[in-house]
């Protein structure tokens, strides 16, 4: 395959950045999208130019570190697929592909396609956990959790923290990310104890980080590689309102 690329280049967080054109010949359709970028970087290196910086690590869709906008879509054209699991067979010979970083006020660009997603860590720090110290745990089977509840909690817990939900949202809302953690923990009896404190602190932190509000366009669910459901957002709102009402 022969492809043309238009890629966002930005020296550092202060630089304004711009799109730059590249071309690649002999792209193998079985290559992953990131292997195509590896190939481009080898080519740039041969010309003495700086490599294109992009986030990635596990390359099997679970670490959540990769993620770019590909032709305007977070993680590219396939449903429920991270950038690293996208393969060049999803494109056609002669295609022009636009590659940009995930953009949001709360996710500043660090260099080229690399962004700063530490805001997500701070949302979790605000309460995305069960307060249990090592050694305090009771016998595991003393906390029965019904099969459907355990499965539902898992569905929410499967979030990989990639930030695609924020990148596709016109408001740059982190509601899907935050609500997934709230749902995971509130569904479980172990996590219900701190439910009210947790939801208030996490939502407040989410707002403080500069993420926008949710206006129910559901774009986040459509682009989420882990199929996290927007119903969690409804639950988060319900839990939040309940917590505000019950606040002493």
């Amino acid at each position, binding site marked *: 395959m022969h492809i043309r690329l238009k890629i966002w280049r930005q020296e550092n967080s202060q630089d304004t950045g711009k799109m730059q054109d590249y071309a690649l010949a002999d792209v193998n359709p079985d290559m992953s999208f990131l292997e195509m970028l590896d190939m481009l970087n*080898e080519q740039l*290196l041969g010309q003495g130019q700086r490599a294109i910086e992009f986030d990635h690590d596990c390359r099997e869709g679970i670490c959540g570190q990769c993620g770019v906008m590909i032709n305007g879509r977070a993680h590219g054209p396939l449903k429920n697929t991270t950038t690293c699991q996208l*393969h060049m067979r999803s494109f056609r010979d002669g295609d022009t592909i636009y590659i940009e970083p995930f953009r949001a006020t709360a996710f500043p660009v660090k260099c080229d396609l*690399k962004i700063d997603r530490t805001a997500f860590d701070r949302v979790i*720090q605000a309460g995305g*956990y069960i307060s249990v110290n090592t050694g305090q745990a009771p016998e*595991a089977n003393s906390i029965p959790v019904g099969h459907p509840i355990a499965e539902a909690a898992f569905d929410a817990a499967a979030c990989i923290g990639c930030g695609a939900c924020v990148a596709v949202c016109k408001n740059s809302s982190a509601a899907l990310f935050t609500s997934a953690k709230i749902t995971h923990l509130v569904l479980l009896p*172990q996590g219900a104890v701190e439910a009210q404190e947790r939801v208030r602190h996490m939502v407040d932190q989410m707002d403080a980080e500069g993420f926008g509000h949710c206006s129910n366009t559901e774009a986040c669910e459509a682009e989420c590689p882990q199929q996290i459901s927007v119903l969690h957002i409804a639950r988060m709102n319900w839990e939040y309102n309940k917590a505000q009402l019950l606040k002493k």
Partner: protein
Amino acid sequence: MLDAKIPEGPLEDKWRHYKEHAKLVNPANRKKLEVIVVGTGLAGSSIAASLGEMGYRVKTFCFQDTPRRAHSVAAQGGVNACKNYKNDGDNVFRMFYDTIKGGDFRAREANVYRLAECSASLIDQAVAQGVPFGREYGGYLNNRSFGGVQVSRTFYARGQTGQQLLLGAYQALMRQVHLGSVQLFARHEMLDLITIDGKAKGVIVRNLDTGEIERHGAHAVILATGGFGKIYYLSTLAMGCNGSAIWRAHKKGALMANPSWTQIHPTSLPQSGEYQSKLTLMSESLRNDGRIWVPKKEQEDRLPNQVPEEDRDYYLERRYPAFGNLSPRDIASRAAKERIDAGYGVGPLKNAVYLDFSRAINDQGVDKIREKYGNLFRMYEKITGVDAYKEPMKISPAAHFSMGGLWVDYELMTTIPGLFALGEANFADHGANRLGANSLLQACVDGYFIAPYTLANYLADEIRTPATDIHHPAFDAAAKQVEDQLHLLKSIGGRLSADYFHKTLGKILYDKCGLSRAAEGLEQAIREIKALRQQFYADLFIPGGLAINSELEKAGRVADYLELGELMCHDALTREESCGAHFRVEYQTPEGEAMRNDKDFAFISAWGWAGENLSPVWNKEPLTFEFVTPTVRSYK
């Protein structure tokens, strides 16, 4: 002589006895003591969170952009614990025995017993954190089976057990960060260990975003930096996984134990081309229901579904009827290589075998299989474009786990006082072959339940030691050396990328120090690696500056791999026996099974760094078996 400091007494009393007599640090003194934890996977996050909860002052470092990315996240199938919830005869001793036998009797009895003993508490801890393990309809925890055992002791969260356990540990860590007991330094890479008066006292790290070299002092340093299987380039590991932290500690005096013992995982996706950067793992749990076969006919050109039952060779069921498709990883990988090398491989490059679910789907229904493995089947389809509910998967062996690592004693302390190594970074529990679902276990047990005790035992003698002065000459010297090396790498100005050297090294190691090894090949590999290292320092090119620069990060890691790879070959060459994953072609039975030599090689090789281009120093820790008798490992 290496002293592993194994407590006296019967096997089942050793750990209890240790805990009863270990020194303690009182809560008021803990806040005066600083501990550095490098790595934020399961071992790193669990120890950092646990120490924070206890009141120590902790600094934690990872090269990823957040701790939750660490590669523990990718472990799929499960975590073992001898809860005996299935009432199928499990207990601590049996789990200990399975593990030590699985490791081909090349691990310490006391360590392995402790691993099994602490396994049950881990499940309790994880459930309390909210890890959504798979459950029965009555609400109680469910189990599945894994290779090398005949009970069901593996707890799982679909095919994402590592992710869920890591998120549990990560959330515990984030809680401590919020409370101020742990300081988090993401995007920081450790580049040197500081020793003062022979004790570990700090680290030099590089901020990968700004390029700044930073100094951090502490009363103890914990390395939980994972394995170095990425040295083979093509592996199941993440792109950033590396051996640099442990290698640099090694060069400061920590011994490396059994570095050549690498687990080659039997069920990964086969390589499909030269451009490939990664071999994706398909969980071993698939072997619960999947059957492995190759055609009986060489160069079979029929599609798998068209090959009738009588023309299929279910070679694991044939060779190992007692364990069949759940034979341990080393045996399953070697058996696959044997069939592939004999010309029965399948797929376009004839480098794979089939993993077939048709019988399980027939027996249990497609919905049940989807519930158990849905995400794995989805992942398989994304990568290969093939629907594995309709035709068999194609799988192949790939480099996966480092059984070797920094030598540690029973307290998980290396040969440098105050330097501890946890999880895959150490060598301690898996012998020459790790059983499936024991890696998550070991990482967690080291971090939650062992190091909190053994570290206190060390720190109890440090309560009068003031905070480490980061302007000590040892820091000056190390910082200068780190900067010099970065500048050296940058200034070579050749024409080849770090990846080129990494791929070349990986190929040498995979061919000559991989699934099977021979003296001649290993000697040749050592020569080739030496030459490659020379070429690296003559022909490397790194574009870009000192701030964000992935090429510079890679080059530093490859520089270390080029030294570590040579040591691996040296280790494999000197071990003139076959054991576990270490298969020397000279030492095998006529049926092709490994021939262990307990008379001459029942020891751990612990290598010391002698200096650039000098032969490593060989230390041996004898392995004594007081409680079990090493047998010929048979899964037939």
